[in-house]
């Protein structure tokens, strides 16, 4: 069942501003909930892939309808210690940066929701979000993996081999930026 009180309690826990006027903040509001759901926090709100990546129209509808009661509704919901820990982990890992959250949520939804292979998920990300640099994409993917992927040692080695070309491309992109801006 869709639980807006829990959503607002989570926003309060991680310090998300309850502001629907800012485009950037609206991205943060959607993608934090998508990631927390993928991390196992239960609160309803089904996400599917839309034009903007993983998205939940029902969540937007409830946020806009009830944002005026943010404090009252946030107080109604009691988060478990596990939920508080996950919210904290999300905040510390992502820094609540909109672009990182967007990429991490899209990567997470593709790999853990739609069961795409990591390399295929990155190809889709590059195609659907060409306005992000390779460095931004790999940074967001890295955040997604930290939050969602807890591999065995063998899985980790296999993944490193698969991701090597992308990591090298990201390093090359970063080096170009360093040279360009004389950092």
């Amino acid at each position, binding site marked *: 069942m869709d639980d807006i009180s829990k959503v607002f309690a989570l926003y309060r826990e991680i310090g998300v501003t309850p502001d*629907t006027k*800012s*485009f*950037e903040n*609206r*991205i943060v509001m*959607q993608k934090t909930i998508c990631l927390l759901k993928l991390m196992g926090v239960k609160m309803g709100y089904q996400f599917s892939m*839309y*034009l*903007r990546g993983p*998205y939940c*129209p029902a969540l*937007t*509808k409830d946020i*806009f309808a009830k944002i005026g009661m943010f404090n009252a509704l946030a107080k109604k919901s009691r988060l478990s210690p596990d939920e508080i820990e996950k919210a904290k982990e999300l905040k510390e890992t992502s820094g609540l*940066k*909109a*672009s990182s959250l967007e990429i991490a949520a899209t990567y997470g939804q593709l790999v853990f929701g739609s069961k795409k292979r990591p390399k295929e998920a990155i190809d889709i990300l590059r195609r*659907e*979000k*060409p*306005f992000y640099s390779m460095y931004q994409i790999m940074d967001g993917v890295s955040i997604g993996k930290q939050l969602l992927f807890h591999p065995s040692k063998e899985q980790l080695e296999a993944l490193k081999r698969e991701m090597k070309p992308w990591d090298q491309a990201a390093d090359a992109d970063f080096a170009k930026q360093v040279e360009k801006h004389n950092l």
Partner: protein
Amino acid sequence: MDEKTISLIDASKALEPRIFSLPRLILLNALRDLGPDGASFRELVAGLKMPEGVIFANLKAMEQLGYIESESGHLEGTKMTSFHITKRGEEEFDKARNWLRRLGD
């Protein structure tokens, strides 16, 4: 003429003909799903795979009709324009979509 065709013709009088172009229907369909959140211009270009000029011209035309509103903002320091469908836009698009579904029956 059969009854179904007569009924479709009658129903078509309530439609706004200016949204019946492929780019406009595609844009409204994409924005309908996103409600008041809308999408940025760059997301529409990347996601809909239509030329930028086509998207821009049709967004502006539908803004004039009152079916879309634009909003200027920033995303991590980059200036951005986003577009969302209005209540009127939702109503007109839903009418068009229902009529097209009846046409296909």
